[in-house]
């Protein structure tokens, strides 16, 4: 069983947190913090396993992680999972993200946390590995996104328009409009 899946960046900022066992929000943050401290002080060329922290798990649990550029992907698992298997699973997860976002980077995870959750839910369900075949996963995600688009087709047209306008970042643009410096212009007016 997988107890938790955490993604955070090199500074410990959470980018995704999925707990398959209930912890309240404060505890979740503490766990993330502790895990970050454990993981971040390790070199890149040491092994990817370490004994679970004091907050999450205990002796039966292991932290298995991978470090990609600015992000750490950490899985907390018990002894029923194969260590190398989970490492492969992390790889599958990241590759799937890469396919879905086209050259995934941290920003994609920041702005599409919900999408990342949906992708993850095709890999792992309730702490158990659901699917490891990447093409199957991608097909499922594709179909669901299509469904979402269909729904959005008619009813969400206005919303889409709005979001399109919004992504133009109107407030910023309005701000950016350069008006002539009026007082100066007035001064410059010569009667």
């Amino acid at each position: 069983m997988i107890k938790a899946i955490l993604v955070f960046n090199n500074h410990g900022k959470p980018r995704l947190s999925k707990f398959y066992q209930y912890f309240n929000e404060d505890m979740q943050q503490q766990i993330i913090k502790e895990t970050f401290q454990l993981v971040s002080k390790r070199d890149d060329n040491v092994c990817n396993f370490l004994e679970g922290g004091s907050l999450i798990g205990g002796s039966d649990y292991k932290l298995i992680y991978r470090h990609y550029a600015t992000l750490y992907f950490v899985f907390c698992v018990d002894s029923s999972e194969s260590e190398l298997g989970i490492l492969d699973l992390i790889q599958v997860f990241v590759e799937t993200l890469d396919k879905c976002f086209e050259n995934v980077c941290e920003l994609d995870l920041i702005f599409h946390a919900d999408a990342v959750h949906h992708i993850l839910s095709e890999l792992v369900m309730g702490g158990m590995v659901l699917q490891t075949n990447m093409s199957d996963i991608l097909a499922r995600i594709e179909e669901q996104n299509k469904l979402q688009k269909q729904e959005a087709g008619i009813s969400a047209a206005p919303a889409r328009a709005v979001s399109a306008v919004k992504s133009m970042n109107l407030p910023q643009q309005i701000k950016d409009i350069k008006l002539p410096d009026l007082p100066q212009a007035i001064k410059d007016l010569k009667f």
Partner: protein
Amino acid sequence: MALKMVKGNLERMFDKNLTDLVRGIRNNKDNEAKYIAQCIEEIKQELRQDNVSVKSNAVAKLTYLQMCGYDISWAGFNIIEVMSSNRFTCKRIGYLAASQCFHPDSELLMLTTNMIRKDLSSTNQYDAGVALSGLSCFISTDLSRDLANDIMTLMSSTKPYLRMKAVLMMYKVFLRYPEALRPAFPKLKEKLEDPDPSVQSAAVNVICELARKNPKNYLSLAPIFFKLMTTSTNNWMLIKIIKLFASLTAIEPALGKKLTHPLIELISSTSAMSLLYECINTVIAVLISISSGMPNHSASIQLCVQKLRILIEDSDQNLKYLGLLAMSKILKTHPKSVQTHKDLILACLDDKDESIRLRALDLLYGMVSKKNLMEIVRRLLGHMERAEGSSYRDELLYKVIEICSQGSYQYVTNFEWYLTVLVELILLESGSRHGRLIAAQLLDVAIRVQAVRKFAVNEMATLLETYPVTAAPNGTMQEVLYAAAWIVGEFASHLDGPERTLAVLLQPKPVAGHIQAVYVQNALKLFAHLVGEAVRQRDGAAIDRHCQTLAEGLRSYLSSADIEVQERASSVYFLVALLRESLGVGTEQEQHLGPNADGGLLELTPDVPGEPEREETVVPDETNIATSGGYTGAAWDEIEQIATDLQGLFVSELNPVAPKAQRKVQLPEELDLDEWINQPPPSADASSADGGSSDEDKFPLFLTDGGRGGGERETNGGGDESRSYKRIEYTQDELDKMRQARLLEQTNNPNYLKSAKTKKSSGAEYQQHDSYDDIPIAEIALEVPLQIHSTKRSDKYLMDAERATRVFVGKGGGRKEKGEKGGKKSKRRGKKSKRYSDESDSESDDPKPLHVVNTVIELPEGAILSDTEDKNNADPNDPHRALDIDLDAPFEDDYPPEMKRKTVNQHQHSVMLLRDGDTKANRPTDENPSGTEGKHRSRRDPTERSAVKHTSKTNDRHEQVDGGVVHEKQKKKKKSSEKERPEEDAMMLMIDEDPPAKGSVKVRTRKSEKGAEKRNKLVREEEGEDGDGEEKEKKKKHSKKSSKHHHSKRESKKSGYEEMPALVVGGANKEAI
């Protein structure tokens, strides 16, 4: 200004979506909390609107905030609203939020049952899929019971996607609702052969999780798994199956033989490292389980170890780690085959990776031998000096001690070395949390290895003197002072400079109270020894000097804030005062110590029955002398008498006591705790009786902390006015008689620690100690100078040992020069060395132990060490306990009634569901959520609601009680009682030399056991109450049931237990409408 206004309006015009929120948070790094608070306000407003897409937008934002650590459970109802939307987009958002913030104890979940059921039966497979994914994160017991059937239906859906998710979901259902396992199991088994590989994989996954905790119930599935293993190509599933076989083979060795061949085939054919590794792991498990069955299994073990060696040597750190991990599994059963790779493991100790070092440390435990122990420990100490991170250093410290002390120090040949190592550890790690462990080791070695006692005592004296007492924040290293003080006191006769040590003990140090108390006690012991010595030398001045030192040194302890220290100090102080008085010297000293010397305390001193036995035997004599004596310048024989009496307080040898000895003490038959130990004081007036009884109440409290402190406390408690202790003065004859009677009683009393019968062995130990001196060291001229330059004292022993072995190997004749010293011993060694030269086996040149560990351990009669009483310490809350169900037995009869009934009522349900769904979908949207909630609440009949709750609960409990649980418990009890029988017989056989002397147990023993007895009694009472409680509960249930019937009748005109849960669901439906 104007622009700002425009911007504000624009923002209000369009709701922020998730992207905006994230962008906003990133733009407001300085006042993030404030910004988020503002956003939450906005979200609250959005949630109040009627448009579902606005709401879902708000919920999506909340999900993000949840990840940032904000509690969003206040929006639970809105989340459910979004979940119930017809649009997939919203549903997805809703279920995601629910999976992040709901948990099995969320109360809101009872509102979701029908909605989830509707989603599960949706025609769109992704609706059901999303619902299953969400549900897997927050499913509760109620939901499991209510939805088990729906999920089971999905298991045979035509869509593989749903089958796969439903199969996995069933595991979560089993955990919360174990009754579902039996009916669902056949279907689950079916899914192992599903045409779709991912469904197969899911089923394997679920069964693996189930079988991990209760493997024996799944043995019958082995053939199917075997087939899967040989045909499947899905590595993930293969790994799971192979892991499952590892747990199955542990209980069914026959399976292992069949497995080895295909596994080895897999090992050679697969390219996936993960699969290879798991195969090796399982082969190891197989080999362990059939270690006796197969003739050539040692060859297979060798193969595995070889493979692991390749893994460990790999440059990939992960493989190295896993290789070491697997090695440790082999180590437990086949230590020999791992030992051949010692070099590799020792090399891993220097790895830069902490995880790998820790794994290697685990393996070290099995690597050590007499020969290399010193070398390994030296390396570990070196590591400790270099390592940063206190937890790793602590781990190292722990390992050093674990390695050395394993098997009663079976690999330690030189205990002087070991003590030196311990002292070094103490000085190295002042902040360690293993201080207590080191203290225990010091005590253990000092007590059990008599040959090094002298060394130990002097080492401890130095430690006491030099240990820098600093206020380490959370370290427990101070504890070693406790051990050190005790050792110097107890074995004072071995001390080189007892006077100096006495002074050290009397120097007040800022150590914890319980350690100071030991200081005081052992100062007295030392003092007794010193006085004895002085008397032997007829040195009156020395006695006086010692008295003075002690009396003055005690002064700071007398005013200690710690009550225990103060008390001990004052009793010691008055003991000394008495002694001096009887010697006729102490008069003027006494006066100027006036303030504490009020008469009350003096009078108490004679009433020492509460004191530990050893002291008690003598103190009356002391008083005798003190009171009768008006001696001035007492005659030497008189003084000698006092000195021996004083020493008599501490003469008897202490033996190590087995860890569980206290618990094994058997209950004397005639012990009655309700009986008065002493007659209660006549309750003349109410107040004094009250005082007395309150006193009485306190005593058990003190008695429970056991030992010395408790005893002394009681003596003082006797000082209370309401309790009148008579002072009886015995004549010498009477005292002698009493003492003899008591000694007799003690020898017959099984609960009393007897002095060791180890004279023989101790003699041998001394001899061997002598032989240590025989080892020729100085005379040898080595061709190659030793290259070791180190500052550690413990290294000296290593070098000595190395030299010694060189002597053995190089010139066996070295012993002859020393032959004169002890002919016998050298002969013995000569023989041995001859044997060594005969067989040049690696084991034979192990260094001979210099010291022998005393293995006598005190245990009460009728108890043996190997008693296993803590066997069943598994977590009682583990849901897997309830899942321990025999799945091969036919189950038609115990099909849970709810499920049966549900299948009957399915049709009716679906109709209701449809209606429910319609109403929900068409619900007029102008009604705001809080309003709806209010309406729901008001519509809900409170009595009905409670009925709902009761049904679910009582049914639950009922099922569990009726089901196998109770039955199995009884079985277990039977088994355990059967097991215990023969063991008891064996015990009786073992101890028939000591006749059971239960008759001679006297009141005092009762007193000391009062605490334990009381506890026992409490337990009994609790059990009794439990029984009552159960009955009561049953009654309650009964009444609840009947009341429930009532409701159901009233509501639906249907009656009967079978129908009940359906009605409950019906009720819930009504609520929703």
